[in-house]
């Protein structure tokens, strides 16, 4: 009995908080997704109607597509930039520690600050980016950035990569520092030049870490919300709408909590699958 009391005291509070606020919410979310509710009165049970509606919802598929675009950019552009930075920093030149901090700085600052500053920088009429382009004689390159439905998503992705590339760099740097020097030395003795060492030895040895970074960026790309909410709110004309912002809009602007929960549930499923894969790969890597 003493042991049972111990368990209650040690794990009890955590259990209560977690069940009451987290697990209950997730279950309630799934429950709501089978109902229609505006927040007033009683929820109305509609079984799979929300999911059928979702399947036919053009805006849902567009939002999902935008998530995928962000994900692909993370897996390509951001990965390459992070990798280049990590390899360069790993070379250990005199300012490499300072450089590491410089590139990590965008990760440190609050996302709200970043969103507000970049919104100002990208301001079409009087933001410094367009001003600078004009004054350099490149006026034809000025764009409406966040206000142009064709370019808004690209602009958002640009800011997003700016923010997160330092994080990927750090993860890859850790992997680089785990590569045994002896292998690099052996390659050099065999006559490999710098480029060959990097492409034929370093990067192949980084494969597990690269996989981890890719999975991390996939999960990250589905979590994106504050940046888009502050930069564009999902517009213009839903050109930057992602699952999160769409769910938010449906819930808190349209007061359609049932349908919003459906979107949230789909998001939950995506996140859980990604996280499980992430965990399995990490366990495999850490063997």
């Amino acid at each position, binding site marked *: 009995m003493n*042991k049972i009391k*111990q*368990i209650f005291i*040690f*794990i009890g*509070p*955590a*259990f209560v*908080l*977690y069940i009451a*606020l*987290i*697990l*209950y*919410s997730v279950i*309630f979310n799934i429950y*709501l997704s089978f109902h229609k509710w505006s*927040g007033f009165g009683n929820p109305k049970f509609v079984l799979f109607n929300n999911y059928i509606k979702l399947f036919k919802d053009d805006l849902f598929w567009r939002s999902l597509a935008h998530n995928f675009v962000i994900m692909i950019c993370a897996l390509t552009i951001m990965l390459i*930039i992070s990798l*280049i*930075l990590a390899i*360069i920093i790993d*070379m250990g*030149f005199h300012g490499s520690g300072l*450089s*590491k*901090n410089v590139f990590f*700085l*965008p990760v440190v*600052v*609050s*996302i*709200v*600050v970043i969103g507000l*500053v970049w919104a100002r*920088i990208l301001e079409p009429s*009087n933001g*410094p980016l367009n001003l600078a382009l004009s*004054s350099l004689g490149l006026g034809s390159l000025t764009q409406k950035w966040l206000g142009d439905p064709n370019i808004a998503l690209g602009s958002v992705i640009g800011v997003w990569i*700016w923010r997160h590339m330092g*994080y990927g760099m*750090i993860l890859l740097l850790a992997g680089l520092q785990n590569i045994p020097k002896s292998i690099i030395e052996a390659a*050099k003795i065999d006559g490999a030049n*710098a480029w060959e060492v990097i492409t034929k030895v370093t990067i192949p040895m980084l494969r597990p870490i690269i996989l*981890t970074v890719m999975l991390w960026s996939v999960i990250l790309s*589905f*979590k994106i919300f*504050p940046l888009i*909410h502050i930069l564009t709110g999902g517009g213009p004309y839903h050109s930057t709408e992602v699952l*999160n912002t769409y*769910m938010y809009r449906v819930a808190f602007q349209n007061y359609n*909590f049932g349908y*919003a*929960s459906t979107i*949230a549930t789909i*998001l*939950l499923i995506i*996140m859980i699958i990604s996280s499980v894969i992430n*965990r399995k790969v990490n*366990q495999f890597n850490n063997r």
Partner: protein
Amino acid sequence: MQWGDIKIFYKLIIITILILIAIISLYPFMYLILLSLAKFENSFKIIAWPVNFEIVNYVNVFKEIDLLYFYRNSIIVAIMTVTINILVGAPAAYAFARFKFYFKEVLYVVFLLGVMIPGQALVIPLFLNLKALNLLNNYLTLGIVYPSIGLAFTIFIMRSFFENLQQDIIDAAIVDGCDQYKIFWKIALPLSRPALASVALFQFIWAWDEYLLAFTFLNDESMMTIPAGLAKLQGEYFTDYPVLGAALVLSSLGIIVVFLLTQRHFIKGLTEGAVKG
């Protein structure tokens, strides 16, 4: 590859790339500082060099924005988050690490699920339920919700730490007649300070920067945390950009100073979660 192995020609290319990306990384910060020091009329002309030096913006911040409220609320919420995380999470992690009981692993997996649950899946139910309980629009609510979310991760990190504790120290304590509470409180916990510090830093920063729940739950300026307060400014036709800039600088000073002081630990604390899955 070491720096010495690179031919000079390639060194130049690398340095150029580095400087370019460094400029891109740093420019927004520089612009922000310049903006915060500008006179209102000049705020739309700034590109990359100072136009004037107007320190009064930093004074006006407190007149035009409830920044002090935001700071106070954020600090309280962050401290509550860290405290509850540790006080509630560390014992649980210890129990998972060193006790043996029937449903242990099943229970642990239940907690682990929490690591995978994104805030997006929680915001709607929490909003509806907290609204019914009249607990919305209060930063103290966040101070309870945030640690609940962080518990899963905290328990995950602390468990592996507690599992690696030296058994002989604990055996010695048992021989001396200590019960589990004493062992935990007087031995395990003090030994776990580095892991606790890591957890505390991570949770503090997470709570400080959290946006989705803060923005959704808080409505009155006096109740808002920094992310919610600053973001809501955007919608309110707040056109005094230099003052807004000053507010953003002031909000970021704290975390940047902490970063510069702790660098390696800071970076490690923020990134190890991603690798441990």
